[in-house]
């Protein structure tokens, strides 16, 4: 649940930041349709979808003690929770959104390596 949530949250923040409105909210000084910003938004968009796919892949591939069906259910719940969390952050902490997304990603990678190394 935690790993799913962290990766989905990172993915949702990337997808949010790829949108004009949230991009401008997060970086108020940057024109969101300047060529550099468009490129960055495209990269964020791709990164977001890749992260979502990756988190689903990890959930299904490393189901651990539970069944794949249960794992998919937990992933879907985490997906919705992360979307709620990302939207709250985009609403009330817009400028911290990039940092929060990166933190979630880092934590997610840590949790994943810990899971793989652990028993």
């Amino acid at each position, binding site marked *: *649940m935690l790993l799913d949530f962290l990766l989905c949250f990172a993915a*949702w923040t990337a*997808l*949010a930041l*790829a*949108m*004009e*409105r*949230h991009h401008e909210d997060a970086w108020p000084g940057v024109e969101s*349709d300047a060529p550099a910003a*468009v490129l960055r*938004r*495209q990269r964020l*968009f791709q990164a977001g979808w890749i992260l979502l796919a990756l988190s689903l892949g990890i959930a299904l591939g490393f189901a651990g003690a539970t*069944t794949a*069906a*249960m794992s998919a*259910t*937990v992933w*879907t*719940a985490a*997906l*919705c*929770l992360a*979307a*709620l969390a*990302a*939207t709250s952050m*985009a*609403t009330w902490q817009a400028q911290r959104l990039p940092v929060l997304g990166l933190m979630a990603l880092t934590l997610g990678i840590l949790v994943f390596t810990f899971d793989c190394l652990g028993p």
Partner: protein
Amino acid sequence: MTPPQTKTGAKTTRQPEQEGFRQAMSWLHTWSGLILGWLLFAIFVTGTLSFFKNEFNMWMRPELHGLPPPDSDVAQRAQAALHRHAPGVSNFIMRLPDERTPVVNVLWRDKPNSRFEALLLHPQTGATLQARETAGGEFFYRFHFELRTAHKGRWTIQGRWVVGVATLMMFIALLTGVVTHRRIFKDFFTFRPRKGGQRAWLDAHNVSGVLVLPFYLMITFSGLMIFHAMYMPAGIAAVYPGAKGTDTQSYFSELQGDAPGARSARRGSNAQAEPLPMLDLAPMLSQAGQLWRGGRVGSITVRSDSQGPLVEITRHDGDRLQYGPARLRFDGRTGQLQTQVDPQSPAIKTYGVLYGLHLARFADIGMRWALFGFGVMGSLMIASGLILWSVKRRAQALRKTPAAPLPFGERLVASFNIGLMGGLPLAIAAYLLANRLLPLEMPGRPDAELSCFFGTWALALLLGLIRPMRQGWALVLGMAATAYLLLPWVNALTTSTHLGISLPAKDWSWAGMDLSFAAMGLMLAALTRHLLRARPQPAARHAGPAKGAAAPGRKPGTQLISGDNAAQEA
């Protein structure tokens, strides 16, 4: 969500046919939502509470507080206790204790086809436990799918049909909503509460709708599936012909993975059932443990029929996603395993998984809270949709004529919004307060609790009809806030399960209830404060200072002024 593009390539011409389709869907979405919205709100709220049905069942029976964890031969001891309590018992279902419900729950009867009697037993000693008479969390559960209004149940089938129609409408509203609110994927993360008015309500409706969409689709579709046999009997009638019309029993036997006719074959004549002897359950339970590789036993059903006692051991329904759980059938006298009942066909498994997802028996505490949160979001989605209906019409009317009077229909919708939606949390608090405050020995106590629930709800509706405006909301939500904040205190004064005892003992299933009530009270209080804070509105300026200063419950000295209503300001 569409990939970012430079603006030149983004513009597409709009198709006229698409617009027509969207408008048709918009019409369907608006009116199906309006007509059944209040009912759907009540179904959603009670369904959400049903995720914590067991916890409500315990909290509303404080006599059951502080029971020890069960020991290994709890089933045998409980069986002995049942035989002492009811020597003629011929059929019983014994639910074994688990971490959510630490009590042995027995339903028993001594005549076939009579009503089951309930019995609560101590998880270690098997002693009979006396708890107050209450419908408990079962009321929310039963209201959720059959609109139960009385403890023993009435108009059950009719209620299920009404809920079924509402569920179908919900499904239609969800699908048409995706078409109607065309920007939901473009505005996926967009919520702008500061913009106020129609914009903020539309954002709230869209965001609460789209973020948890997988849950809504799952819960609505599976809700329809559960009663498929009632809504669509023709297929069953065609394939399962019986001597007297349709052999529905065989259909349900097969749906549970049983042989058709297994339910009735052994039963024989229904005239009289032999009293059950004491059975040695331990070998059967240990065999079940081996077959299920350590899976938990959920319940034990014992029945005396034409061939002697029959024992069925049912696995705990929290052990897997699919519902219903696997069963083992034993001959009671010899302890011989007869059949393993567990459906294997892909269609039945799919159905079972949908059923299981809806009931969420599989969910651990984290998942349970997540699902509860999704249910709350769903309730907010319905509520914001209904309020949006009012706000939008009001804004349009005021744009045309600045002091337009509130038409009858809109006034009615505003009243129902306050009474039926705002009144529901209040009614639930009244039900819980009644559980603590009504005399314990009162005859018909469960129905008296329900009267408190429905009476309070009706009262809130009356308030909504009298004051279909901001004050009405503040009054009803303020009363609800007070009631929820009172609950932990009333609990402390009337029982020994209060926070002063449950918190130091880290007894989270009990403390969690009181803490949740307090949190709910604080949230409602904040909402009420927000509503009471005067906000100067161009059309409502002459509504006077009474609006901001009036305490809830006191009659404000102002008249109903057209602009001063929930529709415009909410």
